[in-house]
């Protein structure tokens, strides 16, 4: 009897703790997806995908800043009528791509997920990535751990209000970058300074992402946006090997910069790490027609339900920086 009492005590202690965590998580989670409400700048763009109207996004693009500045969903919309969204973040790791997909999925049911695979190489070594992935896991299930710093500006409203995401990113996750700093290094795929090795934690989450897509009937496309400073043959081969093993298509635009029409003297903002606006237009055009040809995606142009996307496209064009407009 004494023993039963003791063990009930231990269980009760942790049950109460779990309840506390869950209640506090509710309080600490921002009640809106705006920066003012407590969302970090880094999370703001991917969170915008949740704020979009239900089931509007057919193609969800995940990845780091290379895809953030490299693919423009609204230009794909304008050309192919496909609705896509870049849920990318600077330095996004695959474990984050995975959890964004899981968070966005209840609201959006994409037919195609595109993962920009530079996200495989944002880690800092095997042990560090195990720790990081664990942190992401904890933050996914205990939002308090993610939003804990909001203790500084909690308001009364946090106690009472429901969570409603309303703030839409009119560029659908795309980041317009002007400015040009040419890359003059020539062929970079042979440069083997960067290792292609994928650390175990990242590989685990790549597999989890792959099987999530599989079990939810989502097509998965691996993509590399051209980037001389972050890509080479070793990395290409590592990704191609994974793609082969799992029966996934892998589109490496680094290998087809000529078809895409990249001019490295004009299309990069920082000597070959990120594309600028000009480069991203070429990649978006190529990618748009590629997915339109490969996947049965619906052209939603003219569908009155999607009027917002036309509206957003107009706003986006109007808000383009002056230098880009004059060039046009």
């Amino acid at each position, binding site marked *: 009897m004494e023993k039963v009492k003791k063990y009930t005590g231990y269980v009760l*202690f942790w049950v109460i703790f779990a309840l506390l965590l869950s209640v506090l998580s509710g309080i600490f989670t921002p009640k809106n997806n705006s920066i003012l409400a407590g969302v970090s700048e880094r999370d703001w763009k991917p969170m915008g995908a949740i704020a979009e109207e239900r089931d509007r996004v057919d193609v969800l693009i995940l990845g780091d800043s290379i895809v953030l500045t490299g693919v423009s969903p609204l230009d794909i919309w304008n050309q192919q009528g496909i609705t896509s969204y870049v849920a990318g973040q600077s330095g996004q790791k695959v474990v984050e791509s995975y959890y964004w997909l899981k968070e966005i999925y209840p609201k959006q049911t994409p037919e195609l997920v595109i993962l920009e695979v530079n996200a495989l190489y944002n880690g800092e070594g095997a042990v560090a990535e195990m720790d990081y992935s*664990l942190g992401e896991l904890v933050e996914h299930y205990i939002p308090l751990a993610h939003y804990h710093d909001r203790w500084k500006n909690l308001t009364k409203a946090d106690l009472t209000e429901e969570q409603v995401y309303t703030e839409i990113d009119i560029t659908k996750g795309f980041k317009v970058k002007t400015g040009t700093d040419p890359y003059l290094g020539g062929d970079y795929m042979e440069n083997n300074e960067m290792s292609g090795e994928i650390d175990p934690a990242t590989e685990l989450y790549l597999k989890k992402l792959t099987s999530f897509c599989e079990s939810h009937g989502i097509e998965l496309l691996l993509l590399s946006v051209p980037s001389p400073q972050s890509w080479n043959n070793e990395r290409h081969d590592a990704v191609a090997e994974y793609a082969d093993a799992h029966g996934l298509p892998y589109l490496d635009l680094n290998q087809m910069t000529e078809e895409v029409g990249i001019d490295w003297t004009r299309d990069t903002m920082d000597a070959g790490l990120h594309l600028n606006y000009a480069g991203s237009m070429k990649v978006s055009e190529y990618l748009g027609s590629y997915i339109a040809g490969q996947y049965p995606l619906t052209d939603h142009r003219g569908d009155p339900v999607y009027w917002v996307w036309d509206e957003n496209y107009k706003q986006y064009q109007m808000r383009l920086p002056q230098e880009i407009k004059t060039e046009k």
Partner: protein
Amino acid sequence: MAYHTLLFLIVFLPAVVILYQLAGKKFRPMVLLAAGYVFFFSFSRWLFVYLIGATVVMYFAGIGMEKYRLMFKEQKKGLDRTAAKELKKAITAKKRRILFVGILFLAGTLLTVKYYNFFAENVTKIAAALSVSAGLPQLDILQPIGISFYTLQGIGYLVDVYEGKIKAERNFGKLALFMAFFPQIMEGPISRYDQTADQLYAGRRISVQNLTMGGQRIFWGLLKKIVVADRLNTMVGNIFSGYQYCDGAVIFVGAAAYTLQLYMEFSGCMDMVIGTAEIFGVTLPENFRQPFFSRNVSEFWRRWHITLGAWLKDYIFYPMSLTEGVKKAGSHAKSRFGKHGAKVVVSLAALFPVWLCNGIWHGARWSYIFFGMYYFVLILAGVIFEPLFLKFSERFPKLVKHPLYIAFQIGRTGVLVVIGELFFRAEGLKHGLLMFSHMIKNFHPSAVVTGNLLGLGLDVKDYLIILLVAAAVFVVDCLHERGVGVREKLAGMPAPARWCAYYVLMLSVIIFGAYGDGYLAVELIYAEF
């Protein structure tokens, strides 16, 4: 996989606890040893051959010395006193040779990986100054984690065996475990063989009592490290890198904040380490005893990083002061200047190497050597002026016992420590000196209250939470100083109160911790030494 990371706290440690418990008494030490090597491997990969190499050397050197000790015991029988003395001398010489080789290997490895580049750089500089075109190349040497800590444990073991204080260990696994107990690997505490080896090898069952007490202490350490130390890191970094633009008073606050950061960080880490060991029923030596209640700097060093001070005392200070030369100088001084003179001379000779070692142990930098010499001078001055203090306290017996006078002494010690840490943290000795003179010349106390502290990466709420937790630590330190067992008291409270206390502790770490978006992860400071 440092002690404050999730990987350690929610994967590695629970896994080791479960495996350890399942393994049964006989195999538990092996689980701990394997865990130690995995832990070491996660930081330094194949450099763990250094650790194994050190263990092998210790093992054979220990057995070798033991052999001679037994030989002496055997042969001495039936010899008269003079003959026994002769024999002892001969055998001691042989033992000493083994000791020397063992220490040479252990210390040599440490010196090479840690100090070679510093040495080479300075040789090259001197050669350049003498316009000789000679110099030593800089080498790309990797330093295995914790080498500064385990090397001292290894040397201590050899000396203890040499002196017959302990028996040489014939069980290689036990010796290996002594060197590779995972909670101790990164930052100590530095323990002596007879303090921990038997406990580590006992393979005691983990009890719920151990688990809660250990867990309690781990969370207390996390609170200090993640809430206070990591939060202070940005502010301290900003003041030390931009001191030219800071008022002297702000610099002083920065140095004090760094002292607080270091205390919270190092003592917090020790709480985690000692708490982890406690789970396995192992009592590690304490490394801190409320250092900021010290009334002078030598007392401070008996309360701060205690195991390093104890090691230096046992293996540097005593051996140095017992060498013939120092003893002779002492008795010579005694006959000429009296007892006090002898004390000054012996102190001079024995304390200098102690503080040189203390300084340079922290790393190959002139500023660390300066740090050691700073304390050498302060403590030597204390020895020299001791008769004056004695006279003073004889003259004013009531004053020296007055609480205000004691508070003054504690405050004075605190200021001296803060100045020491200023040089310790500064980017090199040159900046340390510049920073110190800048602090003295531009000191305006008002600068602290006119908002200058708010532009350094912390807002008012950050300062509040730092002060709040620091106050909690202060209260607990006060209670410890009075001999109250806070942890036992807490564990003995009725369940509702105890649970609330644990919830507050755990949630404070989660909510007020300086981690995640907007914070840079801060590595353990002492693991770099």
